[in-house]
């Protein structure tokens, strides 16, 4: 089912992204992965069509974070394939994938607590360095060379969108409030113009108002045509901006479809009915 989806998406138009760059598209095919002897993902097929927002929903422990870890290269699948814009990048390191345009905001920890806000922004500019190694180069071939991005550019974008970060540029990021920390983390997506954005539980431990604010920004990025994979436990927050919803249970995708289609399965999945 998901392969069909990928095919239609690849054939479809590419909204938002000008400059004739072939849009990267993230795809997992038959991925199995786990921790040591314990397998957590039992064959996951998932595709993020170019320019669309896919929400990956599921209860605690379903394997959502593990799926994202495979997507961003932090975890190597024991079998199956990870594809970026149709090219297999299975086994690429996380830093290579980051430089190829996969921007991941991990669960809880999207920032370096012991660096200042400004230094955190500086670290973000690394994502636009040229990938190292022959193979990584071959992966990035075809994609137009992205110019590097300077600290000043990122600072400008960040402070314009979140003035509060500008006021606190010299403060240690670990001393910011939870919402401000997530804003800082999101800046990476704003400032480095990634091909795919992976978000893991952006809402964790935050007040509803802050969550709404953050997802407003995600919605705006989506409207600009960024491909986004959102992992959430609380479905209501993401259903409005999602084009597609994948429902995950016990390491398998059990349902994929438009938000309205999947919605009725949701409560059943969460309540175990």
């Amino acid at each position: 089912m998901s392969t069909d989806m990928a095919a239609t998406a690849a054939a479809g138009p590419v909204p938002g992204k000008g400059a004739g760059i072939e849009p990267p598209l993230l795809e997992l095919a038959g991925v199995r992965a786990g921790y040591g002897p314990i397998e957590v993902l039992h064959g996951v097929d998932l595709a993020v069509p170019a320019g669309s927002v896919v929400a990956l929903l599921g209860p605690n422990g379903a394997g959502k974070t593990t799926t994202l870890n495979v997507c961003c290269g932090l975890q190597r699948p024991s079998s199956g394939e990870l594809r970026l814009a149709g090219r297999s990048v299975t086994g690429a390191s996380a830093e290579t994938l980051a430089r190829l345009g996969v921007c991941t905001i991990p669960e809880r920890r999207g920032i370096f607590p012991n660096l200042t806000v400004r230094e955190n922004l500086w670290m973000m500019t690394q994502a636009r360095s040229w990938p190292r190694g022959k193979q990584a180069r071959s992966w990035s071939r075809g994609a137009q060379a992205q110019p590097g991005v300077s600290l000043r550019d990122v600072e400008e974008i960040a402070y314009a969108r979140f003035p509060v970060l500008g006021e606190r540029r010299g403060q240690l990021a670990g001393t910011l409030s939870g919402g401000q920390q997530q804003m800082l983390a999101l800046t990476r997506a704003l400032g480095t113009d990634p091909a795919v954005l992976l978000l893991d539980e952006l809402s964790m431990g935050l007040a509803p108002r802050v969550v709404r604010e953050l997802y407003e920004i995600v919605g705006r990025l989506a409207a600009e045509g960024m491909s986004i994979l959102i992992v959430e436990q609380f479905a209501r927050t993401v259903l409005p901006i999602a084009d597609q919803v994948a429902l995950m249970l016990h390491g398998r995708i059990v349902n994929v479809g438009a938000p309205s289609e999947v919605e009725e399965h949701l409560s059943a999945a969460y309540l175990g009915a």
Partner: protein
Amino acid sequence: MDQFLQYTILGLVLGGIYGIAASGLVLTCTTSGVFNFGHGSIAMLSAFLYWQVRFDWNWPTPVALVAVLGVFAPAFGALLHITIMRGLRETTEITRITVTVALTVGALALANWIWDPTVPRRFDYFFGGTNQVKIFGSRITYHELLALAAAVLIAVGLRFFFYRTRTGVGMRAVVDDPPLLQLTGGRPERLATLSWALGAMLAALAGILITPILGGALDPNALTLLVIDAFAAAVFGRLRSVPLTFLGAVVLGLANNYVLAYFPSERWTWTSNFRISLPMILLFVVLLVLPQDRLRGGTITRARERFRVPTMRSAVVWAVILVVGMFLLREIMAPAVVNTMVIGMTFAVIALSLVPLTGYAGEINLAPVSFGAIGTIIAYHYGVTGSGVDTRMTVWGLLLAAAVCAVVGALVALPALRLRGLYLALATMAFGVFVSTMVVADTVPRVLPLLHVEFSIFPNGTLNVPRPRLGPIDLADGGTFLMVITVLFAVLGVLMVALRRSGYGHRLVALKDSPAACATLGQNPVRLKLSVFMLSAAIAGLGGALMSAAMVSVNPDRFVIFVSLGLVMTVVVAGIGYVSGAFAGGLLAGVGFVALQNMFDKVGTDHASLSSLFSFLSQFSTVLPALIGIGLARNPTGFVDDIIRAFEVFRRARVMLAAGLALQAAIYLLAYTDTFSNWWFVALTVLLWGIWPRITPLVSDRLAPAVRARRAGAGALPAGPADGPAEVPLELVGVDVPLTDEHRRVLDRALGLPETAALPGDLAAVPGRVTPSAGIPPAGTLVPAP
């Protein structure tokens, strides 16, 4: 005034060099989170190598400097990271400390191997000692000027690097969260390798610069310790801040020189010892004022070491086996060997002190032998009766030694217990160095103020410690001593197991896992740690007093910090969570490796044609413990655990165990009747127990079907439902063995849940894999814990 200026400048120079060394340490510590106790040994090896290429091979100075500072040191640092330190990221603090301690011990052995320590070596000031400039009337050599300039340059350069370059900022980021750095496109491995290369280079520079200033003689121990002095500066900088580190280093250098200038060395005989001990005293003071760490919850790192808890019954059985075995061994040992064995057993007692502290509570004491020194001194001065050949140590003397050590232990540990484990390690190491440079170095008798008696702690540099007498049992006889110390070890060992199984033991283990959780449960972590540290220090003191009594005559060399480091390392490698680990580690550190070396030496002299091979093997056995210690990164639970696992095959093959024991008895009898020498006995015993567990499964596989058939026929032994799962503690199911339905049933019973027999058939058939259509797993399905 002139004198003041002169000493100030020299103090700044010394401080600058300390700063260079300490900043290298801070650099590696910030990026990799590993505090490198072996930093000093990098400096030491580099200084030796510099001597080698510059003065032995007569390379020109610039070439020699480039070879050492530009090639050897960075390559060595990078190699250390890639081969060893990288693997330490998910291990506990104890493992990290032990591995770098092993590096120290190994580097010392290596230096003594390559550069024969009996040949004096030295090198002097760059540009010679006479090329001086005059600054405000005080003389300063070009070399000192160079050192000062290098220090300033490095201080400023590092500050700039850490805050004004993206690579430097990345290095500060990497310790927080290496995966996150990857996600932003950074390369944490490369940064860490780079930092180790730079750190090693700074250590090398410090080593080469400091050697001439302190007299020019190259001595591995002294050079290693010199850079260890820089630890105080690094701790002053909280292992993070370069400017604070340099500030601390300058204070250290100045203090050192002012003591030299203004302390009346004739009247105060301890002045020079005090000066040498100063960095460690300052380290202690810094620890005292360092702000408290926040309590940590469960660490995110996944600890790879797991110690199983023995039952009381098995503890007692093994204690009896130990005593009986030692008795049998004693019968075939020559008197000299008996004495060596006694020393080994006293080491085992000292090693035992680490089991509750390190094995259970997860805190480390890097100077157990120094507590032994305190115990020795107390027992010598206050626990001796009789005179002449009848001089004996009393039981009260031994108990007093233990009690005093407990108090001293409390004083040493108290400042560091608020902090994380590394700081306790540093505090104990400072204490250990202090004991060897100040306490046992107090050899000149002097009149005590007020008391007006002549006294010195370690009169004339040798203590003749008498053997103890315990009521009717006189330990002057080696054989008796051996049995008494073995019984003592066995009793203490059983007590340790009882301690582990008690509520107190559980609290200790809980403390190791999560101090924060302990605090929320109303425990006082500091009090708990203090009590276990005092207990540990008391055991170490007792063991140390006995060790000195076993040696009869001891000198301060017995108590240098490296003896402690070697012991700690060996015990951790053996398995610090087990009493048997203390036994194996203590024996190995006390006598094992020395015996191995002696054996190779002896064989080498017997067979002249192969003497070079055997002298190689003999030297190699001095480096061996360190190599094993470094290997700890691979197997943090220790080798005793491997042995225990290997011997588990005998649980199902009692016949094979009996056969093995019979063979052992035969070997013993042959040795007992002097049919062959004890070397053969040792070799054959090792061979037997090395092979036997491996062939047992082969044999029993062949026998087992027959046995099972017979059993089934008789129907006498219905397989109990808990039969299989009971072998593995439930919390390790799914980690050590695959999860089965049997486990699930046991768990359900334990949790009081309804039996899962009602499960759909397909679910029960595929354990751990729940089909999605089945929805939420039924109660009783295990979700493996992270």
